[in-house]
C-alpha cells in the first residue's frame, strides 16, 4: 500500500502547491466601483454598463474597439479593447471587462456582455 500513498501523495501535494501559487497569480477580483478600478495596480474585472449616449468607436487601423462605461454610481471611464466589437454588444444590459486601468484608459483584454436575452423581459414602467 505504501507506493500508492507515496505516488498519489506526491502528485497531489505538488499540484496543490502549484495550484495555490498560480491561483494567487491569476486571481482576478470583480470590482463594481470605478474609483477603485482606476487606482488598482492589478488586473480586475470591472462591471458596469455601456454609456450608449457616448457611442463606441471601431478603429480599423489600430484594430481597437473603444467605448465609455459607467458603474452604478455613474462614474465613467473609457475602455479600449484590442480586438473587435463583441456580438450582442449593442443590446447588452451590463458589461464585464477584464484588464487594467493605465494612462487614462481601461485596457481590456476581454469583454463579456450580458444580454437581456431570453431569460428576462424588459419591464415597461410607464403607462399610457
Amino acid at each position, binding site marked *: 500500500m505504501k*507506493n500508492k500513498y507515496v505516488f498519489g501523495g506526491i502528485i497531489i501535494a505538488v499540484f496543490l502547491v502549484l495550484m495555490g501559487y498560480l491561483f494567487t497569480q491569476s486571481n482576478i477580483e470583480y470590482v463594481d466601483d470605478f474609483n477603485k478600478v482606476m487606482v488598482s495596480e492589478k488586473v480586475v474585472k470591472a462591471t458596469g454598463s455601456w454609456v450608449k449616449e457616448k457611442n463606441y468607436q471601431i478603429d480599423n487601423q489600430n484594430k481597437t474597439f473603444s467605448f465609455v462605461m459607467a458603474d452604478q454610481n455613474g462614474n465613467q471611464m473609457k475602455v479600449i479593447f484590442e480586438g473587435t466589437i463583441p456580438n450582442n454588444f449593442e443590446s447588452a444590459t451590463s458589461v464585464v471587462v477584464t484588464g487594467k486601468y493605465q494612462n487614462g484608459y481601461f485596457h481590456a483584454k476581454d469583454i463579456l456582455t450580458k444580454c437581456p436575452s431570453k431569460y428576462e423581459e424588459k419591464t415597461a414602467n410607464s403607462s399610457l
Partner: protein
Amino acid sequence: MIGSVILTIALAFSIISMIMYYLNYRGYKNTLNYGRIAYHAMAVLVIAASIFLWYAILTHQYQYNYIYSYSNNSLRNLGVFQLASSFWGGQEGSFMLWLLLTSIVGIILQSYASKRGDLEPRVMAVFTLATTFLLVMVSPWFKNPFEYIWMTPTFVKVEHLNSQFFNLPFIQQFYFTDQSSNQGFIQISKEFVAQLSQAGVSLNQFIVDGKGLNPQLLNFWMQIHPPILFIGFSMATVPFAFAIAALMKNDYKDWVSQAFPWMLAGMGILGLGIMLGGYWAYEMLGWGGYWAWDPVENSSLIPWLVGVAGIHTLLVQKRSQVKGGIGKYAKTNLMLAVLTYVLVLYSTFLTRSGVLGDASVHSFVDPGMIVYLFLILFMGTFTLLGFGMILFRWKTLNENIKDDESILSRELALFTAMIVLIASAIIVLVGTSAPIFGKAVDTFFYNEMHLPLAIIIMFLNGISLLIKWQRSDLNELIKKSLFAAAASIMFTILLIVIGGVHEIMIILLSLTTAFSLFVNIDIAVKIVKGNMKMLGAYVAHIGIALFILGVIGSAVYSEEININLIKGKPVTALGYEMTFTNYNTIENNTKYAFNVKVKKGNSEYNVAPVMYMSDFNNSLVREPAILTLLTKDIYISPLGYDEGGQSQDQHSHNHISLEKGNSTEFGGAKITFVKFNMAPETMQLMQEGKDFQMGAVLKIEKDGKKTQTELLRKQTDGKVEFTSFESKEMNLKIDLEKLSAGVIDIAFSTLDGSESQGSSIPTVGNEVLSVAASTKPFVSLVWVGVVIMVLGFFISMTRRLKDSRIIS
C-alpha cells in the same frame, strides 16, 4: 394544466416506487412488483408529459410561459426539428429533458438489474430518489415548463398579439409603453385573462407569436449537444446507484463489474456531448477556439474527469478480484462513483442557480431563492447519502490485501493516472468555483496547470500499457518500449526541425503524446490480428493522443491577423491570397454572405463568412467561415463591412455640414436642422469661457414617421462632449460632431453596421470587408480524437457488458 397534472401524478408514482423498492430491500417480498409497476407508470407519464410539451410547442401554444419565451412561429420555417429543439431552449425544459432521459435510462436499468441477482430493489430505490428530485424540480412549485404565462404577470409585446382583439374595451387598462423605445406591451395577468375569457377569447387566440430563440443557438450541433450531454448526466446516476446498493448490502465485489459498462458508456456519451459544445463554439461564435474554460463548459468537464479517473481504478479492482476478495481500491471506487454524480449535480447548481451571474456568457439568470435552496438540497442529499454510507461502512470496507503494489506494476500506473485526472478535476473545480467567492481566475491558470498534467497523463497513457499487472521486469519493459520511444523521439525531432517547435513544455508534451500514440497503435495493431474485443482501451487512448496533438497544433501554433479586404483587391495573409469578391443575401434575405476567394498556388477555394441583424436581440451577429484543409483550418471571422461612400468629396457621404433650416437625406430619411436650443444664460457663460450646454434640434422623417430630437454639446470642466440620436425603427444613428455659428456638422450611420462609424473608414469609395483570419493547424484532430476516444469507450463497454452477467 394537463402537463402539470401528469407531472404531479408522475411524482407520486416515483415516491411510491421508491418506497416499494426500499420495503422490498428491507424484506417485504410482495412489494417488488408494486415498485416495478410504479416505476414504469412514472416513466410512461414523464414520456407523455414530454410528448405533450412537444405537441404544445409544435402547435404554438403561447399561453404557456415557457413556449412563449423560447419559441416562435418563424422557427417553424426552419424545420420541425428546429422548432422541436426549443424543448430544451431554457431552464425548465432542460430539467424536463434531463428527467425524460433519466426515466428512460431507468427503464433500461430496471431490466438490467432484474437479471442480476438481488440487485434491483437496492439500485432502483436509489435511482428513484434521483427521479423524485427531478420531478419536484419540474413540478408546479419550481421550474415547471407548463406554467401559464399569466401566473406571474408578464409584459407581452404588441407584435406578439392578435391585433383584431385590440378593440376590446378593457385592453387599455393593461396597455403599457416603454418610452425609451416606444414599444407597446400588454400585461398578461390573471385579471386580464379573466376579462379576456369573459369576452369569449382564449389566451391561445390572443397571443399569436413567441419570443423565439437566440439565433446563435439555431445550429445543428447546438441542438443535439444538450440531449447528448443530458444522456451522459442521466447515466452518471447509475454508477452512483450501484455504489450505494453495494454499501447497503455491504458487499463490494459484484458492483464493480455491474457498474463498469454503465460508467464506460456514460462517460463516452458525456465526453461526446462536451465536445459537441466545443465544436459549436468553434463553428458559430467566431472567436476561433473551441474551449474557453468558461464555467458552463468546465462544470460538465469536472464530472467527466472524475468518472474517467474512476474507470481506471475500477479496472484495477476488477482485475485484482481474480485473487479473491473485493479487490484493490474498493473505497476509492465507491468515492469516485459517488463523486461523479455529485459533481453532475454541482454542475447543475453552478449553471442554474445564478451564482455565476457575472462570470459566464451563458449562465442562466437567477432562478429565485427557493430554486437555489432546492438545488442545494438536491446536491446535499446525494452528497450526504453517498459519503455518509461510505463512512458508515468504512471499517468493514477492508480490502484484506497485504501486498504492496510494485513500482513497476500496472496497478500503480493506473492508480497514478486516476490521481492525475483527479488533480485536473480539482484544478478546474477550484477555478470554476472561484466566482462564488467574488474572485475569478484568468484562463492561463487552467492552461499552465494542465500542461504538466497532460505531459504526465500522456506518459502514463503509453507506459501503463507496457507494464504488466502486478510486477514487471525493468529490462523487459525497456525492451518493449524501445520501438515507441525511438519513434516518438524521431517524431519530436521532426517537429522541432520542421515545425519550429521550441518551447520545452510543448516539446515534452509532444514527446509523451507521440509515445502514447505509438505504444497504443503498436498494441492495437497486434490485437486486431487477435482478439478484437480487447481493442477498446487502446482505441480510446489513441483518440486522446490524437486529441492532444490537435490541441497543441491548434492552440499553440495558430496564427491570427486582422485584415481589411477591399473589394476585388487581393491581399496576401498567412501565406494565402484572399480576395473579397461580393456579397449576397441568403436564407430568405435575412443574412448576408460575404464571398471571399482564398488562393494558394493552383488551389482556389471560396468561403463566405456571414453577418446579419438579429431580430431576437437587435444586434449584429457574425458567423465565421471555416475552410478545412488537410493539415489545417483557415478560419475567417467577419468583423465588419463598410460599403464606402459614393461622393467625390473628401468627406464621405455620411458626414455633412447642415445650415439652420436646411434638410438632407440619408438612408431614406429626411433630416432637417430646425434650430439651436440655448438657455438665456448660455451666451454669458460662453463669453466667460465657462462650462455650458447647447442643443441643436433636428426633425427626422422616414416612411411617413416623424420625430424630433435634440443633440447636445456639453462642456464640463473644459471637456467637450457631443450626444447622438439613435432609432432602431429607422435604422439610423446621428452623431453631432461640431456646433458653430448657424451650422452644425453631423455624421450619419446605420445601426446594423452596414456603414462604419465615420472617421475610421480606411479608403473612401471602396467596399471593405474587415475580417480576422487565422490558421488552426491540425484542429481536425481535436474532433477526430474525441470521436475515436468515444468509440473506444463503446468497444470497451460491449466487452464489459458480457463480464457483468457473471454473478459470483
